């Protein structure tokens, strides 16, 4: 069984983002970038399925400029077999990304597509669901457990009140939540090996899709800063303040 894992290059999750002085966007100049944490979990899940013998080939794909090859190589070092870069300098809406991925799905015919549930930059949480809708594949979002058996995949999902398990007919789209697995680190020999694995570059323009932007970013501002309050010296003082000053308990 073939698995497709779309991944995204984003700001490293340890780095605090700054807004540009002209409020046009965030400033990513000289910022440490990394594979989106949820995408890393998706790669790991695919690798584990391959190690378990369920999966025969893992293809990773990313949409972006040349720099995203770095993240594709990381995924190859983690265990993916080959990579596709869909090359564009534009920052595309989730819908256009999903349309490009739809074309890749049509060509590669994977039985399973595993994606991160959201990227930590735009926080959209859309691409997996859009891809499922466009391809007509079944959908299991926010997965904390994935079990493939008998032409189906059982996905246990993180829902507001706890967990929900769905049985999906293959082919299926699964998006990852945090507890699905703990990604491994790439070993040095695997990093070296990854340099020789195939990485195809395909210009986005060649996919024959109208990639016109559907949204326009008018401005980006820093969030309202919360003022630090006061330190209290004791539980008694804390309770007193909450009762008489903040009036949030009685």
């Amino acid at each position, binding site marked *: 069984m073939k698995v497709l894992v779309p991944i995204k290059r984003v700001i490293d*999750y340890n780095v*605090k983002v700054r807004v540009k002085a002209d409020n046009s966007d*965030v400033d990513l100049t000289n910022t440490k970038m990394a594979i989106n944490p949820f995408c890393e979990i998706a790669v790991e899940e695919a690798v584990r399925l391959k190690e378990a013998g369920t999966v025969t080939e893992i293809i990773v794909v990313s949409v972006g400029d040349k720099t995203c090859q770095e993240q594709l190589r990381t995924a190859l070092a983690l265990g993916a077999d080959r990579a596709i870069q869909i090359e564009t300098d534009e920052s595309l*809406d*989730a*819908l256009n990304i999903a349309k490009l991925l739809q074309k890749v799905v049509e060509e590669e015919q994977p039985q399973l597509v595993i994606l991160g549930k959201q990227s930590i*930059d*735009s*926080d*959209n*949480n*859309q691409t*997996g*669901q*859009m891809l*499922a*809708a466009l391809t007509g*594949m*079944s*959908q*299991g*979002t*926010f997965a*904390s457990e994935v079990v493939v058996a008998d032409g189906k995949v*059982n996905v246990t999902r*993180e*829902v*507001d*009140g*706890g*967990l*929900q398990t*769905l*049985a999906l*007919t293959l082919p299926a789209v699964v998006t990852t*939540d*945090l*507890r699905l697995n703990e990604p491994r680190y790439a070993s040095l020999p695997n990093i070296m090996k990854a340099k020789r694995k195939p990485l195809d570059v395909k210009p986005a323009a060649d996919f024959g899709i109208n990639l016109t932007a*559907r*949204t326009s*970013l*008018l*401005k*980006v*501002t*820093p*969030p309202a800063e919360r003022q*630090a*309050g*006061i*330190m*209290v*010296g004791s*539980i008694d003082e*804390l*309770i007193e303040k*909450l009762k008489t000053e*903040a009036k*949030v*308990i009685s």
Partner: protein
Amino acid sequence: MSILVYAEHDNTELKADTLKTVTAALKIGSDVHLLVAGANCQSVVEQAAKVTGVTKVLVADNAAYEHQLAENVSALVLELAADYDTIMATALTTGKNFMPRVAALLDVAQISDIIDVESADTFVRPIYAGNAIATVKSLDVKKVLTVRATAFDAADTDGSAEVVTLSNVTDAGISSHVKDELTVSARPDLGAASIVISGGRGMQNGENFKLLDGIADKLGAAIGASRAAVDAGFVPNDMQVGQTGKIVAPDLYIAVGISGAIQHLAGMKDSKVIVAINKDPEAPIFQVADYGLEADLFDALPELEAKL
């Protein structure tokens, strides 16, 4: 200009956050309809009809919608879409799950997690875990939006909307529900509680979360946790407050043994009053707290419980 709002519910109760999404909808236009899709969900319909500002409640009561599977619900919404300029859902489990499908099938962008409405086509939303706030204009004819409920006040419930029963049923048949394992708790829901007390890595283990129980009982509070506490296996993920967990904005948020990582702050910094109890005076949580107490939580918690 009509707006369709998807009602989030569990077939019994209309989620309070839907009232907040209705408020967001009323900032866009005045003809707001609520869609209740479920099975044996009559009590939800009754609650939905009372939401002030809602002119019509559409009801799709069928076994195909019992678990609100994304494939089926999105097909239903798509059939109704022609009559609406704007389609909205609360950014909770169900809305996040099916709405992007609706957008994709309508061939429009979705704008997720809006926290303010500037005009009928321009919305404000947090990006980078709330470390930046973006103002985004939709260039599509139809708008598909999810709403961060904590950013809006709840609509009143003294209305009486017309109830319309829908007959269209779609069952895509490619996914089926196996089981739910929902956390049973006598405490209020994290998202709806007016007081939340959360523990972090400083709690040291799951057993110690019991120290929060008595305080939560006395305050009528929900209990939450930081991602560090969830990752360490102390408590289940449905207790997680943060960028990757639940976003809460209660009147009072008490953070115990939580250092205040960016990703946790993203989930609670809109709380009205924040209290932090931590033994590390340098913990970043103190920079956002209204009241900070530098103390060992193992001393502070029993004392707090005794004195409340």
